[in-house]
């Protein structure tokens, strides 16, 4: 079954139109730029590794400044990435979505701002890791 699909894909690839070049055909020396034709960079490809498990969210508050996450920044959250100690994560705690640094050694959520206390994680809490913040995006022109 899988082999069939591979063969089909290969056939479809073979049928795809070749990239067309804007340069006209000339008999003289070819333009050196032609060899470097590439796709424009797509930011989605850079920040989204797993599209079906990636979500965007808006940061609200100042406790993560030490990690470079400011109020109003856009967060890229991937639910499929395994949360390790030291990662910036989003957690659901007692029904609220929080962005903090995970510290498994001390079983707590740490803020990246000394003015905010650590939040210990204990058994009675309703606690679940919702995903890992893989990137954050800030607008520097104020709009």
């Amino acid at each position, binding site marked *: *079954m899988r082999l069939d699909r591979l063969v089909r894909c290969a056939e479809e690839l073979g049928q795809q139109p070749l990239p067309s070049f804007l340069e006209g055909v000339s008999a003289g020396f070819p333009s050196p730029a032609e060899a470097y034709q590439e796709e424009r960079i797509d930011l989605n490809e850079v920040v989204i590794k797993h599209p079906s*498990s990636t979500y965007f969210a*808006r940061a609200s508050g*100042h406790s*993560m400044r030490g990690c470079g*996450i400011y109020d109003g920044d856009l967060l890229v959250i991937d639910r499929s990435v395994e949360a390790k100690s030291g990662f910036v994560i989003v957690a659901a705690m007692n029904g609220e*979505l929080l962005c903090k640094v995970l510290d498994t050694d001390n079983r707590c959520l740490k803020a990246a701002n000394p003015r905010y206390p650590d939040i210990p994680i204990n058994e009675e809490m309703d606690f679940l890791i919702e995903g890992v913040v893989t990137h954050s995006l800030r607008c520097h022109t104020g709009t």
Partner: protein
Amino acid sequence: MIALVDCNTFYSSVEAIFRPDLRGKPIIVLSNNDSAIVARNREAKALGVPDLEPYFKIKSQLDRLGVVAFSSNYELYSDISHRVMEILGEYAPEVSIYSIDECFLMLDGCSYNFENYGHEIVDRLWRDVRMPVCVGFGQTKTLAKLANHIAKKSKKLDGVCSLENLKAWDAVFKKLPVSKVWGVGRRLTQRLNEMDIVSIYDLKNANTAKLQKRLNINLERTIEELNGNRCFDFESQPEAKQQIYSTRSFGEKIFTLEELEQAVSMHATLAMEKLRKQSGLARRLTAFISTSRFADQTYSNSGSVQFSVPHNDTGLAIQAAKAVVKRCFKPRYAYARAGVGLIDVVDENPLQLSVFEAPQSEKSKQLMAVLDQLNKHEQQVTYASSGIHQRWAMRRAMKSPSYTTRISDLPVIKC
């Protein structure tokens, strides 16, 4: 082996994805115009919230019980459905999407431990989408569907049920009513019961030759499928619809011809979009307007237009729908509902025209292609006859944000 993955109370589960505070709480989702309850999660069912009940009738009761109600958020539901299906595509070489929240996986030739495989799928969809699902395995689509039902009902199974060893399930089949079998509706259940076929076990072992005389061929196929013999194709595409309808109640009563024309223009636009998506052409359009059934003065009327050329041109459909409404309209009624239907739908290719029919013009086809391209992601270009202030637009007062499709609606996370 075939698997059926079915999301648990899909609409209400979607509403809890970005609202961890609502997980484990009773949630309901309302139909268009917030009129009836169309989805209830397990917690709401446990409280005895009835299905399809008019919402306004029991609203205060629900509020007292702490039931959280949402208007339908189709933008969000379709994105989440898309994510679920995308992930399921990784689990089988071939999948067949059955509905917004159900998908068959073709697993022939795979030598997995199916129970483990099912749990893997359940865990993955919870981790990546926060969607609770059940997975049923069976040799046929009918058995996979039944397995899924058993997985949903039995707490012991933890969301996964495999009917791989069919014989071992006779005791369970004896307890389950025939109505739980795919394709056995209320009326058929009644007729089967009259013939002493009450449980799934009864149906599975029924004498097909005897039954066939009294019932239809599909039932024979269902019986075969219950015994592990495939009769239904694993078709990847659902069959094209022979009729397409777009109808809806208005957010508030309307009285003028102009507004009714706007409403049916929008429905004609939507119906034609659907038609083009399935590469169809329509020969006939119907349109209707009506007051509420409960109004003091009730009135309802409809009409239809036969097209000289089968087509999928939105402009022509709007013209036709407006002409019908103009004919039907009577002043001084409080209109509550309008709609457009495309009937006698045919496939674009191969199209068989009668001697008197000419094909749709090339110009119109090109215009429609450009229109669909522009409106691919968002309704950007519409015919002006749909109006700009849509007083009759759907009421969705309790709609959740479109968390994943609108940048202004992103979930907010406390830092």
